[in-house]
Structure formats: structure tokens, C-alpha cells
């Protein structure tokens, strides 16, 4: 009996030791991003057969449409607010100017178009972790199957799409179909503060052009 009691104590000690080790490892599991701008992403791609050095001028619209579901015939799309659009368009223009392009309003070698997409995601999760695993196990018993303390969080992500198409006139006729030669997507979490969002947009635009050195023209 004494030996059995000692064994029990020993087993408890081992489990406690194991528990401490497990807590040590689980408790400091790396968490990933801590700041919003750490989730910013810039993607670019280009047509490697296209000679950007032959393009010298660009045109760009002064409004940025929002991609917001299907548009009906004749409907006018929603646009990004003017202040934000100015930040985006000015950023694109200054980068293209640095690369040797000149902005024109007609007969541009390339046309740059911009569109924006906002997606809001809501996630619902169960707070009652101590029997969270039962969630859905007993659909016939609402008392067991439900989630007693549901919580939700919502976040919005924004993506800016930029595309550059060749619009050179060949013998006075625009190339048909238009040839896409460069594209960029800037993606990140949206913040309520427009000043920090604008800084992140400007930085992302700069990165998009920095990682596209082939855009440089003569």
C-alpha cells in the first residue's frame, strides 16, 4: 500500500513536470504579426517580352473605381474618395516620372489604370474553450451543442490594383486588344486612421516600382 502511494506521488510529480514543460512550450508559441503594416503585401508581374524602353509617355484617369459587386447596365461605379485617390494617383505619377515617363492626356504610349477593392471579413468563434470541442457534436441537444459565449471580430482588407497597358498607336490605330504589360497589387489591412493608411499606401507604391526596375524608359 505504501509502495502504491509512493508510486502515485511519483506519477503526479512526473505529470506536473510534463505539464510545466508543455505549458512552457505552448505558452510562448510564436504569434506572428504584431503591427498592421507587417501584413502589407506588394505583388508585381510584367510581360517580359515587352520593351519598356520604347515607351515614354503615360496617361492615367483621375478617379479610382471601387470594385463593388456587379454593375448593372448604365450604372456608375462607386469611386474611392478624392483624398485617398490623390495619394494613390500622385504616388503612381511621381514614380513613373522618376522612371523617365511623361504624363500626357492623349496618344500615350501606356495607360495606367487603377481600381480598389475592400473586403470585410467577420469571424465568429466560441469563447467557452473548456467544452468548445463539443460544439456541434450533439445537434439534437441545443444545451450541449451551442456556443454559450460566442465572440466575433471583424476586419477589412484593401487591395489596390494597378495595371499598365500598351496603348501605342500603330499606323494611327490603337493596338487591339490592349496589351497588358505590367500589373501590381497592393494589399493590406485597413485602418481607421487615414494618415497612417496613406503612409502605408505611399510606401507600398514605392516598393511596387522599386521591385520593377525593368519599367525604366529611355
Amino acid at each position, binding site marked *: 500500500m505504501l509502495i502504491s502511494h509512493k508510486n502515485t506521488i511519483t506519477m503526479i510529480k512526473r505529470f506536473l513536470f510534463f505539464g510545466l514543460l*508543455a505549458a512552457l*512550450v505552448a505558452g510562448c508559441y*510564436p504569434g506572428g*504579426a504584431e503591427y498592421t503594416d507587417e501584413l*502589407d*503585401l*506588394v*505583388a508585381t508581374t510584367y510581360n517580359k517580352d515587352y520593351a519598356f524602353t520604347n515607351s515614354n509617355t503615360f496617361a492615367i484617369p483621375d478617379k479610382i473605381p471601387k470594385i463593388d459587386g456587379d454593375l448593372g447596365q448604365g450604372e456608375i461605379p462607386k469611386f474611392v474618395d478624392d483624398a485617398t485617390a490623390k495619394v494613390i494617383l500622385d504616388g503612381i505619377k511621381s514614380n513613373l516620372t522618376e522612371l523617365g515617363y511623361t504624363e500626357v492626356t492623349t496618344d500615350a504610349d501606356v495607360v495606367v489604370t487603377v481600381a480598389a477593392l475592400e473586403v470585410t471579413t467577420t469571424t465568429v468563434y466560441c469563447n467557452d474553450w473548456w467544452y468548445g470541442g463539443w460544439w456541434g457534436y450533439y445537434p439534437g441537444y441545443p444545451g450541449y451543442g451551442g456556443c454559450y459565449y460566442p465572440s466575433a471580430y471583424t476586419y477589412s482588407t484593401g487591395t489596390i490594383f494597378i495595371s499598365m497597358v500598351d496603348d501605342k498607336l500603330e499606323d494611327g490605330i490603337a493596338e487591339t486588344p490592349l496589351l497588358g504589360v505590367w500589373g501590381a497589387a497592393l494589399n493590406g489591412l485597413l485602418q481607421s486612421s487615414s494618415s497612417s493608411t496613406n503612409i502605408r499606401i505611399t510606401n507600398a507604391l514605392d516598393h511596387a516600382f522599386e*521591385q520593377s526596375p525593368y519599367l525604366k524608359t529611355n
Partner: protein
Amino acid sequence: MKNFLLISILAMSSISALAQDGYTSLHYDISFALGNTSDFISQPSFRGVGFDYRKMVTGNVGVGISMAYHTFYERKDYDTYSFDDGVTSLSGVQFRYLNALPLHISSNYYFGEDGDQVRPYLGVGIGTLFSERRTEMGQWSSTTNSWQFSLLPEVGLLYQISSDAYLFTAAKFTTPFKNADFDSQPFLSLNIGMAWMLQ
């Protein structure tokens, strides 16, 4: 005299239990990425835990299993990554994770004799490494899981601190072999913990 002999035998049976039975050990592990592993994550892992079981088959040889769980993690500063001969480029901060679960059948040779307070040992294991590599960038992540054939040479030491417990320390070199998913992704783990004699 009879009583003295009996007591001596009982005492000897207590301190020689390692040789007769074996032990289980639980340990905290620190791991260092080597080779291809360090190309993916160069930071050492301070998040590791392991378990060993050895059954003594002779006074110096024990066989059993070794298993552990290590999490490697590294935040890569903002950088640009290119694909398709540079046609596509992605810029952002990357968060890289490697969760490694080595499982091996091992055999150890223990130096010294029954009753020694210190028992250094050499050993080798054969088994598998399950690993999950995950790269998070922006709001996306890419995960690859793989099982790799693996060897586990190790060197260690048991230091007896009571009639049934030892301090346990070891260095284990997990050396998985290349498969379709990954090249070899070796790492070195330093273990420190406790070992208890089998009851």
C-alpha cells in the same frame, strides 16, 4: 550476516535499477537549425519538449523510443522575393514556422557500471521526422507537411540525484533524408530534464 547481505542486496537493487529496468525522461529542448533548415529559419528554437523511454537489455545497453516537439520561428524583415525568372515579385514581411516532430527507435550504450552516479552514453536512433513548414506573408500562408526518414545520433549523460531519479542531459542530431517535399533539414537539439527509473 544474513540480514546484512539481504540489506546490501536490496540497496544494490535500488541503485542498479537503471541497469535492470530502464527509465523514462522528460526534457526541455533547445534546438539549432543547421544546413537547409537554417536557410529557412536561422534562429534557434527555444520552444521544445521531448520524451525518452529506454528499456535496459544489458547492464550497458538500452533500447527504446525518443520523441520530441520543436517549434522554430523567425520573422524575416521586409524583403522582396522573386519567382518565374523574376517575372513575379512579392514584397512583405515573412513569418516562418517549422514545427518538427522527430520519432525514433533508439539504442544507447551506457558507459560505467551499475550503481555509478554518472552514466554517460552514446546512442543512435532510426525513425522519422514529421515536419510542418509554414510561411505567412500578408494575409496568406503556405504550408507543407512531410514525413522524412531520419537518423538520430545522440550523446548524453545521466546523473543520479536520488534512488529513482536522474538529471538527464543530451545532445541529439536529427538528420532527416531528402524526400519529394524537402531536402534534408537537420537540426541539433540540446536536452535537459529529468529521468525516472521504471518502477
